[in-house]
């Protein structure tokens, strides 16, 4: 029963990922009082791209076409780590947040290589900026997760979620506050949302993620877009799971099983709206202000870890 | 009788060589005399091994310590004679500088040094050490150039003054002995003094006064730092075989004299005073010599300062005392003499192929003279105390003794000095080996005999770097017993 639930929640996460992007885009459009595309638009894009031919630059080597595949596979495997419906996941027991973070790192590394293989300046530009952002984002992300893991006295994702579920929401220690703050800032940087990177632009000055995938087309581009969507969903699910897991089905009763998906969808919707609001209320930061943005995240993460020792 | 033979052979050789006019005959006679000398020394060492102490008449005596230093002289003499066969072909004929004069003075020099080792009484010891200075002064000034004459004069004046103080020290000790009831006729005999040593404690400050004067006197001959100034000039200006002999044999000879006095003083008033003095001289010598090696410009002067440094290390070995310290010091004198003669032979063939010894003007040795540069590398690594070679063993012994006696300051200072010396040597040798060869052709092709000698030294250094043969080990033990 548990295993089935695990597999379902992993597939659920991968399936609704494009939907989440659709919802975010739609809400952002509404805020900017535009009609905006339908919520199901990302699915249509994916289907269209899968049918198109795969254009490959002549200078590119085999790695160019391999990178999207590895990115997608790794991101989907990472998705299997996050407890969604009940506080355990397919790899939740054995795997832990260090493995999760470094799996995402594989995807990012191969995407950067794929971008530079294109042979144009956009790939190099995107990869270089991605290197800057990821170099500064990984440490706070890990430290935040470390602080939460210390409180939960375990390293596995399911263990962390289980310990937060058991606590009373009002008595959560300050560490969770700092960790949440750091995670949010890092999430924005990781998924390439507005203050750090504008997902919807093709302006050389500002794009990071888009620059890397400029050369891709057809199924490769589809895989990359889907992987990106899964990554967004995955990080939002992680935020929800680690900091507000209270709707999860702790027992296998029917009511709990019905309530869990609803709670998850509701929380995801709230997060999507929050992202949309942030995106439309802020302008993209200048490239060399991103380090201060992530510096803030590192400070919060260091405080979180320090407080785990002080508040013991 | 064997001891008398030891003295007669070099003396007669000196006279005979003087008579033969043509250089070839002189060389042949010299080689013959050399081999005879080897046989005599071997026989004497063998006799000492079996009999412990050999006495001849009132004034000649040889014990374990003498045997060890005799062996040193034998090896060095052999090396120098073989090397000088090839080296002499370009000595200018002058009033005093022709092969026959060279060989006779060398044998005279050997005669005086062997006399030092064999002399029983301290007065006789002083006379022979003074005569070594006189014999070698002419050899230092052999080339009769401006530099050689200046070096010879300075060597003669400084060493004679130094030795005069040693005489004053000997007299003070003689006075102390006579005052505490030793029969004046034999008051200067070393063995008599050794037995009467405890009695000398009564005239405590006289014995200390005598050791101070003797330390300054023989220290000048050994080349401890405040009194070392003659050494670089003498070694740089003397012909190569002679500077090898000066560095390898003469310094050990003066050290032998100081050792004789040190044993008497430590038996009389305890070794604290004399060993502190030796430690002071040792630390001064290694520090100043190491620093000066960094800024040297002439290869032979560099080697001279390295001799001062190694004599400083030997002084430290003896100063630290203990069986391991003294054993290390003795072994270090032997290893150092071989390694230093190897370096001087290399310097000789460098002068022959490049015409100069100024290190800035020597480039591209590795390509033009591969065998000499191999010798230079082996020699430099050996005197820097690197592992595969023998000096690493003796330095390891002295360091072990220092740490066992928990004299941390001295040990740390020695380690720092060894690093500075290694840096200095590497800096100089690297600049000479590398780079393009200067165009003008090689002046003189070094002879195979010179390379043979270098080969012998290298094999010695490597073999003694790994293991010490049984025979040599108990010779060292026997020398240690005398000093204990």
């Amino acid at each position, binding site marked *: 029963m548990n295993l089935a639930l695990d597999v379902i929640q992993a597939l659920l996460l991968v399936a609704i990922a494009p939907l989440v992007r659709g919802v975010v885009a739609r809400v952002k459009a509404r805020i900017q009082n535009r009609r905006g595309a339908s919520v199901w638009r990302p699915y249509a894009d994916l289907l269209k791209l899968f049918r198109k031919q795969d254009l490959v630059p002549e200078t590119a080597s085999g790695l160019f076409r391999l990178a999207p595949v590895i990115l997608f596979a790794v991101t989907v495997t990472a998705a299997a780590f996050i407890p969604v419906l009940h506080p355990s996941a397919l790899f939740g027991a054995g795997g832990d947040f260090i*493995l999760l973070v*470094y799996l995402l790192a594989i995807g990012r590394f191969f995407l950067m290589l794929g971008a530079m293989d294109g042979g144009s300046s956009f790939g190099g530009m995107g990869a270089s900026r991605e290197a800057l952002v990821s170099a500064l984002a990984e440490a706070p992300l890990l430290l935040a997760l470390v602080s939460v893991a210390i409180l939960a006295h375990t390293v596995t994702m399911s263990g962390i979620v289980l310990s937060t579920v058991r606590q009373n929401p009002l008595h959560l220690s300050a560490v969770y506050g700092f960790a949440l703050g750091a995670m949010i800032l890092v999430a924005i940087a990781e998924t390439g949302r507005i203050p750090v990177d504008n997902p919807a632009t093709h302006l050389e000055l500002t794009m990071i993620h888009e620059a890397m995938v400029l050369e891709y087309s057809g199924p490769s581009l589809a895989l990359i877009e889907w992987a990106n969507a899964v990554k967004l969903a995955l990080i939002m699910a992680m935020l929800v799971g680690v900091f507000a897991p209270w709707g999860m089905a702790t027992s296998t009763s029917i009511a709990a099983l019905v309530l869990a998906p609803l709670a998850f969808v509701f929380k995801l919707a709230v997060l999507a709206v929050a992202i949309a609001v942030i995106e439309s209320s802020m302008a993209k930061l200048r490239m060399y202000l991103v380090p201060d943005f992530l510096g803030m995240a590192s400070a919060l993460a260091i405080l979180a870890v320090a407080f785990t020792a002080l508040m013991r | 009788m064997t001891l008398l033979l030891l003295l007669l052979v070099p003396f007669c050789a000196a006279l005979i060589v003087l008579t033969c006019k043509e250089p070839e005959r002189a060389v042949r006679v010299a080689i013959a005399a050399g081999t005879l000398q080897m046989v005599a020394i071997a026989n004497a060492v063998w006799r000492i091994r079996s009999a412990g102490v050999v006495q001849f008449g009132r004034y000649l005596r040889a014990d374990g310590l003498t045997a060890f230093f005799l062996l040193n002289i034998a090896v060095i003499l052999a090396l120098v004679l073989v090397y000088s066969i090839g080296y002499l072909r370009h000595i200018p004929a002058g009033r005093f500088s022709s092969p026959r004069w060279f060989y006779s003075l060398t044998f005279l020099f050997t005669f005086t040094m062997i006399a030092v080792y064999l002399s029983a009484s301290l007065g006789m010891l002083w006379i022979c050490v003074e005569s070594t200075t006189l014999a070698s002064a002419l050899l230092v000034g052999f080339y009769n150039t401006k530099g050689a004459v200046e070096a010879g004069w300075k060597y003669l004046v400084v060493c004679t003054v130094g030795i005069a103080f040693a005489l004053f020290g000997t007299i003070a000790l003689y006075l102390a002995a006579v005052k505490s009831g030793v029969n004046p006729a034999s008051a200067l005999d070393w063995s008599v003094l050794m037995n009467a040593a405890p009695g000398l404690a009564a005239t405590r400050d006289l014995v200390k006064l005598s050791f101070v004067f003797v330390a300054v006197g023989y220290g000048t001959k050994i080349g401890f730092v405040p009194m070392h100034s003659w050494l670089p000039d003498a070694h740089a200006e003397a012909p190569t075989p002679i500077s090898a002999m000066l560095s390898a044999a003469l310094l050990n000879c003066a050290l032998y004299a100081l050792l004789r006095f040190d044993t008497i003083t430590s038996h009389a008033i305890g070794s604290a005073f004399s060993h502190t003095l030796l430690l002071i001289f040792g630390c001064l010598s290694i520090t100043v010599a190491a620093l000066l090696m960094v*800024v040297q410009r002439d290869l032979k002067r560099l080697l001279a300062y390295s001799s001062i440094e190694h004599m400083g290390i030997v002084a430290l070995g003896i100063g630290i005392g203990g069986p391991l310290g003294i054993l290390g010091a003795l072994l270090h004198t032997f290893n150092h003499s071989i390694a230093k003669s190897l370096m001087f032979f290399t310097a000789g063939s460098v002068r022959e192929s490049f015409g100069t010894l100024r290190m800035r003007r020597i480039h591209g040795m590795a390509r033009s003279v591969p065998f000499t540069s191999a010798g230079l590398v082996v020699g430099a690594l050996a005197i820097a105390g690197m592992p595969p070679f023998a000096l690493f063993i003796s330095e390891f012994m002295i360091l072990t003794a220092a740490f066992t006696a928990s004299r941390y300051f001295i040990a740390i200072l020695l380690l720092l000095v060894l690093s500075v010396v290694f840096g200095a040597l590497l800096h100089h040798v690297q600049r000479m080996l590398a780079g393009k060869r200067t165009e003008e052709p090689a002046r003189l092709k070094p002879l195979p005999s010179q390379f043979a000698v270098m080969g012998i030294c290298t094999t010695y250094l490597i073999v003694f770097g790994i293991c010490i043969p049984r025979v040599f080990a108990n010779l060292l033990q026997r020398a240690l017993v005398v000093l204990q």
Partner: protein
Amino acid sequence: MVQLAFNSFLTVLLLLPAAILLCRRSSRTRALPSLLFLLALLVGTFVAGMSFWRGDRLALDLSWLTLFPFAFAVDRLSAFFLLIICAVGAPVALFSIPYVERHYSGTKADWMWALLSLFLLSMSLVVTASTAFAFLFGWELMTLFSAGLIVIDGDSERRRHNIFIYLVMMHAGAAAVFASFLLFLPHAPGLDFVSIRAAAATMPAGLRTAVFLLFFVGFGTKAGIVPFHLWLPKAHPIAPSPVSALMSAVMLKTAIYGFVRFAFDFFGGGPAWWGYLIMLAGAVTGVLGILYALTEHDLKRLLAYSSVENIGIIYLGLGAALVFMANNSPAWAMVALVAALLHALNHSLFKSLLFLGAGAVSDATHTLDIELLGGLLKRMRVTGTVFLIGCCSIIGLPLFNGFVGEWLMFRSFIAGSELPGIASAAILPLMAGVLALIGAIAAACFAKLYGVAFLGRPRSIAAEHATEVATAMQAAMAVLAAACVTIGLMPGIVLSPLTAMAQELLHSSGLPEAEIPIAHTLPFIAACIAVLVIAVTGFRRIKRITPTWACGLPTLSSRMQYSSAAFSKPLRKVFARAYKPDRTVEVLYANEPYFPQSIVYRSVRTTSFEKSLYRPAVDAIVGMAARLRRLQTGNVQVYLLYIFLALIALLVFMRFV
């Protein structure tokens, strides 16, 4: 039987130079010594493997030969490091057979093989020595032989300067190691490891701290800890590639072996501040090492700096182990030590792979400047793939061996929070942040390296016409890559003996298996990724080759691609304080003021400790020497004055003593 193999391994390495001399005459037996060398290394790997996995001890005593005790004893720790030496040595030897043939003529090649075998012998001697004399004998020889190997390769002014710095620093380090061994003397007369171990227990605290500081400096200089790392980026790049692979991958590990032997075997841990000092040194070394690597565009200098970084990571693990020992929780100390040693093994594998890759690239394109390379993956398929595996491992991506060591280190840092003291509970987890930062910057650095060198458009004709290297070289690199991947996927095969060795070393009980699940989950994750990859490739359509999109411009030239300096510019700007670059802009005006003829911008990194730490020290020594030189005035009267002053000084001294 294993003992016999061990003895034959040592003798073959010792006698190889003689064999070279014998069979260099006839061309038929010319290749014999190199094969013999390879065979010896394989035997060595077998011996080390048996002793490491099965734990049987070997001993060989040569004290009858030498004056001081000179003996070998292979316990599990020595076997582990001997395994590193031989397991990395064998592929490097295989790689060198064609490499030496192509690059060096007759005598140089013979010298190369002779010194290589002696170099490996001296390292095995260091690792398996069981007496101080043997250890120090091997320690100094190791430096000499490696310097000899570097000297063979070439003879320019810069090389001489680098070799000089390398030898002098190594000698200074060796002096510190000398002192640390000999400080045991008053208590341990024999200076063999057994009596040293006994003496270490009874030593007074002050002496223990002195020994600790000495061996920290001594082994730190050899390992390349930051203030003493100056020689590493100077010596490794100028060595021939197989030698720099051996130096970087294996020689640095002998320093780690020395440190572990002293800190854990002799002393069995020490006060907590030891651990903090080591962790601080490791953190600073790691961060600065990778930051300097980021700015390099010479392939080998970059890899040398990344060795400094990895040594920093290993020291982080060792520091954590020391802290755990100080707070007497040996179980987690064992995990931290296993993490450090595993990272040492992994580093030796992927670093030698990368250096051999660099050798292959330099063999094919005759240049090591990645600004002139590009598009090599298409032209050198095997070297490219193998280099990619090396890069992935060094960054510590899962499914490759770099990750396992770092995961264990993370795990032990997090476990540090359970320690009683506030300080250790706060510092250890924060070190996890430092490790993550190092890993992230390493990812950026090696993405730059691989992206600029192997992908995109070739930036020079040499890179354009690069062809694949000899098969033996490819095979050697493939073996190392396979090792990296197998350890990455199934770390269990190495973890279990390592844990056993660490327990034996720290006398600690084992950890519950649940705490370290890594060995079981990695294969499942790998399987899941593999399944997904195969599934997704099924969707793919035929591909169409088109020219790269150039915003409508006619053609894209290779100069339009991101160069390595451009790639690392953002990060260099962020970490400007670490580089303190002095930037010069020269503007050349033709004749009118506002229209410059040429603008030259130059930015040079200044923080390499040479100017601030080493230059003043050398100048002080030379200054003192110059002043002393003036004492030798040349005037006889002054010399006589020195003698009289010395005499009077001693007389005064005598009066008071």
